């Protein structure tokens, strides 16, 4: 490690979201209420700018917080507003919150976005994009994908699909294109300007059935067309496929990761591209580790790939609330620092780590 920081949150989180000013947001997912949404100011070592204020420290500061009765499974800031939205069981509705860090440090609930026939549905996946603020893309199944304008709660787009496949993720590729990932692995594209046309299905990855899939979308530099970046899909069996959305007939590359089968299914599967390291991505959700891979040397053979780094820190924690070894629930890359990642686990730990660059690699 170049750098390693280990923090302990009062309650475990399954999301780490970046906000303005390199702030980080985490939230509890306990079933019995009393969950906290915390917006944290990272220690100066994680800020890119010169240190402001008194003395440089190593600690996160809780800048503001809110209380949620529901477990918070997903959270997204709505760009250009002081709002954020969250989702979680027991239905597919979204909760809207206001962050006003200047006069008070409380994140206040200001309303909800209900969904038609939402009760009993799985929790909604959420996505936002700064080009289309204050739109929020959300849905739990292919046929319930919609875009709502957060301030007016007006529905501006509804996916034309009768397919009730459950979603594992969705994203804006740009201001007009949506990418949807089904739990069974199917990827679909949609154009928000074409309200009536059905979703365009993209090739299904060739891997054994019965596996759950999630996706990671690359984020190019601000304003660039994300559809030029390959999409990474990760399965609960450890298969990773990269797909170029412009040429979807065959996958760009694929590999197998040496990971155990996850004890909690696909609940915490997470794959993400490094914003500042060409071709690198990270995966987690199988156990207490986070793997980092360099995909530049991959081909389409699907053989086993060697990670360039494995973060094992969470495995050395105590046991989580269910008594088992800690499971990494989520990870994310630092937007500017190339090799810095943040990862959280089911025992409440939050790690910030940076590995030593070995010669000749990325």
């Amino acid at each position, binding site marked *: 490690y170049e750098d390693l920081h280990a923090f302990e949150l009062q309650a475990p989180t399954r999301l780490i979201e970046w906000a303005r000013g390199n702030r980080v947001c985490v939230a509890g997912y306990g079933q019995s209420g009393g969950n906290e949404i915390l917006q944290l100011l990272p220690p100066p070592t994680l800020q890119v700018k010169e240190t402001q204020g008194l003395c440089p420290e190593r600690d*996160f500061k809780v800048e503001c917080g809110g209380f949620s009765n529901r477990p918070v499974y997903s959270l997204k800031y709505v760009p250009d507003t002081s709002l954020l939205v969250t989702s979680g069981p027991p239905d597919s509705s979204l909760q809207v919150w206001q962050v006003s860090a200047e006069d008070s440090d409380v994140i206040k609930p200001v309303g909800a976005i209900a969904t038609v026939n939402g009760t009993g549905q799985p929790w909604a996946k959420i996505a936002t994009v700064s080009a289309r603020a204050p739109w929020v893309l959300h849905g739990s199944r292919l046929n319930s994908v919609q875009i709502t304008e957060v301030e007016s709660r007006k529905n501006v787009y509804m996916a034309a699909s009768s397919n009730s496949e459950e979603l594992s993720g969705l994203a804006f590729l740009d201001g007009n294109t949506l990418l949807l990932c089904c739990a069974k692995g199917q990827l679909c594209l949609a154009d928000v300007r074409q309200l009536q046309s059905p979703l365009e299905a993209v090739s299904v990855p060739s891997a054994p059935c019965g596996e759950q899939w999630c996706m990671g979308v690359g984020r190019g530099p601000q304003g660039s067309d994300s559809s030029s970046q390959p999409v990474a899909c990760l399965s609960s069996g450890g298969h990773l496929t990269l797909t170029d959305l412009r040429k979807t007939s065959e996958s760009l590359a694929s590999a197998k990761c040496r990971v155990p089968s996850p004890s909690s299914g696909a609940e915490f599967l997470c794959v993400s591209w490094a914003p500042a390291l060409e071709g690198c991505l990270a995966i987690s959700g199988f156990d207490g580790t986070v793997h980092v891979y360099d995909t530049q040397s991959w081909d389409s053979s699907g053989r086993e790939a060697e990670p360039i780094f494995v973060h094992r820190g969470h495995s050395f924690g105590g046991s989580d609330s269910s008594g088992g070894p800690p499971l990494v629930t989520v990870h994310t890359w630092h937007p500017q620092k190339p090799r810095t990642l943040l990862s959280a686990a089911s025992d409440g730990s939050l790690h910030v780590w940076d590995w030593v660059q070995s010669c000749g690699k990325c």
Partner: protein
Amino acid sequence: LVFLLLGPGAGQDVGRSCILVSIAGKNVMLDCGMHMGYNDDRRFPDFSYITQNGRLTDFLDCVIISHFHLDHCGALPYFSEMVGYDGPIYMTHPTKAICPILLEDYRKITVDKKGETNFFTSQMIKDCMKKVVAVHLHQTVQVDEELEIKAYYAGHVLGAAMFQIKVGCESVVYTGDYNMTPDRHLGAAWIDKCRPDLLISESTYATTIRDSKRCRERDFLKKVHETVERGGKVLIPVFALGRAQELCILLETFWERMNLKAPIYFSTGLTEKANHYYKLFITWTNQKIRKTFVQRNMFEFKHIKAFDRAFADNPGPMVVFATPGMLHAGQSLQIFRKWAGNEKNMVIMPGYCVQGTVGHKILSGQRKLEMEGRQILEVKMQVEYMSFSAHADAKGIMQLIRQAEPRNVLLVHGEAKKMEFLKQKIEQEFHVSCYMPANGETTTIFTNPSIPVDISLGLLKRETAIGLLPDVKKPKLMHGTLIMKDNSFRLVSPEQALKELGLAEHQLRFTCRVHIQDPRKEHETVLRVYNHLKGVLKDYSVQHLPDGSITVESILIQATAHSEDQGTKVLLVSWTYQDEELGSYLTSLLKKGLPQSTS
């Protein structure tokens, strides 16, 4: 009623602590700290808040000092000897032993080196300490007949304590600085379920999520190692007592493990005494240290030697611990000036630096410092900050509240604007009120004191004999007389009260008239009434007396004919005050009329 006047000092002003609590008529001062960043009178709390009402000794019942850090005890000699206070000052034994050393040290630097005049003298420190009464942990100390205090272990530094202040059944717990996680040489704070009316807790780190100790230590050792490997010198300014010991233990273990040869020095004098006191007060350290102390003295170091001023000029790598901790004066500043110009060297600040000190300036990024005589010092050495100070974070505060179960919580030492979330968190989780007053602000907290009342045995026995069996879950209504005399409250039977007070007993009797339509003779009506009541009131004693009246328990019913209307009979129902309930019931029952068929 507990008034809290937040003295000049604590409450959003990290720098000095001084809180005034007024509880049930007693006035207690909690801590008496000095602000290290100011060089004028602003460093002392402004006691005019309280002296405007007369002499401090008359006003205050006692002063309590939580631990030896100067921001908690630094103004004590000024307060007792220059402003004037002759009452008792309470602190733990280690605090009493160590305080005068730190005060004298600071006095020397301020007066001798800086040439200040309005400052307390050595004699004043001695005179002040004569007023100190040392206390043991968990020892209940009677300050006077009504006021008592008790100290609890607070962790944080050697001898630090949290204090419970109790007057009758009202109590306040003041935490001072505390720490809920044990470290290398001190245990964690602990308090019993004392349920105080108010818990005053420090909240400096309430909004912080702290990096793990392991990672901080790893980073610290990495930095020291790298500097020493390249031949540089590492300066670690410390307060003699506190983190210094912990860092020594850490370095010693690391040097041993890595087989390093560079010398480590600890400046003498103050620090020798420090180690001496740690040994003296070994029971105040944590379990692990005490155990190892038996086998090997943890405070005697193999790799750490006493420092001599001349060593600072020696070539080659070395690590030096020197006082004071904020580089504001003394030996650490001298060494800093010698080493600052070489970029191979490093200075690691192990604690918070108050504004105005050299430590604070270099941590803020200043690299050109103006020294006395207008000399400019260029700082090329690496400046690092390694915070090891042990304060409770949000999780720790919640833990303490859970342990003590206070009815109200008051937070000091934090930044009010940013505490709304913590306030809500505490209020939601514990259903208590949480206050965050500003400097100079008064907070009033209302308490519900319980008033003990003695109940006479006779009354208790009598009341439990009547009616249903006592149920532990249901409150039972009792009738008695409360006598308040000479500060005592007694609940006795009315007869006893009358006897004691020499009063005559009066009987209250109610008589109610119920009209019944019945053309028959009086004695027939009576018979009808008797049979009716007998049938309805099966659990009661209903009797038909020879003189024509009916009794239900002790209630008397008589029938007479109406004077003007023979068809109407008038029933007189008569009862005493004690039978009010039954009497009212009978009346309403009879008003409903008699059933048609009778025997």
